[in-house]
């Protein structure tokens, strides 16, 4: 589904990603953990070109992102993204947040889009809030709407950039629940997270990143109970 070869990314003189290789298989749930500043989010943002890459290759669903001929908008329709800060459109109602892209990009009619989007809102338990505005919702509700908005494009895979980090602790569960459900349905997911419980329970594989490289990767139970590298041990000791 995604193939990353020797990915490098610099901001000016600062190299943030220093050569990353990674393959994500269809239906796989990959969680990325690591200290802040390790490049996790930048890595994720390179996967849909929100950050242009400086070196190496990222191939998503057969499209080479570094090839200037690749229609990046086309690729993005296949890769849903969920942000830490939700980034819902505050001037649009919940249902309109979902309907916009399917109508403008997929060229669905208003009824088709509404049908599809209402089903998704039901799925994330937000159907009765369809006609409210985002700021009337709690953080957890907003994030569930944001997940539904990304799903409305019927993407082949989903990127989650610390989806629960901006939430009050008691609201984290409802968002993780929706993500778990999605994983069980076979969605390919790439999740940058601090929720070790989620990574352990739902992840097929966990990557530990530090200082711009993948230090260690393994099945969650292996990585958490038997970390190989010293840096991983150190990190896990600090947070667990």
């Amino acid at each position: 589904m995604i193939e990353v070869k020797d990915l490098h990314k610099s901001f000016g003189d600062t190299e943030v990603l220093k050569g990353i290789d990674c393959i994500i298989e269809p239906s796989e749930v990959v969680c990325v953990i690591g200290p802040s500043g390790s490049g996790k989010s930048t890595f994720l943002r390179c996967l849909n070109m929100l950050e242009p890459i400086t070196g190496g290759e990222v191939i998503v669903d057969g499209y080479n992102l570094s090839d200037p001929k690749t229609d990046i908008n086309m690729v993005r329709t296949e890769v849903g993204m969920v942000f830490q800060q939700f980034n819902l459109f505050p001037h649009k109602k919940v249902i309109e947040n979902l309907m916009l892209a399917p109508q403008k990009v997929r060229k669905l009619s208003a009824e088709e889009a509404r049908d599809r989007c209402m089903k998704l809102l039901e799925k994330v338990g937000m159907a009765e809030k369809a006609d409210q505005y985002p700021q009337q919702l709690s953080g957890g509700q907003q994030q569930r709407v944001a997940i539904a908005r990304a799903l409305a494009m019927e993407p082949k895979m989903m990127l989650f950039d610390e989806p629960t980090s901006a939430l009050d602790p008691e609201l984290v569960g409802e968002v993780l629940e929706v993500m778990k459900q999605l994983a069980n349905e076979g969605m390919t997911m790439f999740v940058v997270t601090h929720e070790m419980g989620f990574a352990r329970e739902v992840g097929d594989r966990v990557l530990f990143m530090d200082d711009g490289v993948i230090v260690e990767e393994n099945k969650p139970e292996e990585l958490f109970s038997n970390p190989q590298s010293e840096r991983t041990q150190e990190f896990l000791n600090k947070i667990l």
Partner: protein
Amino acid sequence: MIGQFDFTSVVEFFPQLFTGLYYTLLISVVGLIIGFVLGAIFGLGRISRVKITQYLSIFYIEIIRGTPVLVQAIWIYFALPLIIQFEIESIVAGIIVIALNSGAYIAEIVRGAVQSIDKGQMEAGRSLGLNHRQTMRHIVWPQAFKRMIPPLGNQFIISIKDTSLLSVILVPELIFQGRLIAANHFNAVEIYTTVAVFYLAITLTLSLVLQRLERRLDI
């Protein structure tokens, strides 16, 4: 003191003042509509990724903002016709002056408002597969427009009062009419005060309309 002034007699000059009001309104409305379009174009041009567009916009904004409206009016009415060998009617020249002048300030208002919208909004739009233009149009612009309203109201009021300078290029607006009347009837204080009340009537109405609009867009 007020007893020395004869405000009752200004009523007889109302027809003439209303003619002035008509031209003030005409030039303000048409000028500001064009000014808003110019402002949108150059405001977005100012933040364009295309360097040429950026420099052109900066050039326009800085030249206009850095020179007095009075001089701009004289250039456009007296100098421009000599260059292009084409006579411009004073009213048309007036509209051009207000449009060009307000356009430069509105460009900065537009730029500020667009740049104030959180970067995450553009990213969210793009991540859904919308292209840059679609995201601007459906997501960034509507939010930015709401933020433009207060400073736009300010600029509109300034531009309306700027039309008074157009009397020097013989636009028959309010001040021009007032000066004619005052010169013939030696009632400068009464006439100019009346003229000021006319301006107030326009600007207060505008403030009211914008307040309403702001409240309606506020969800």
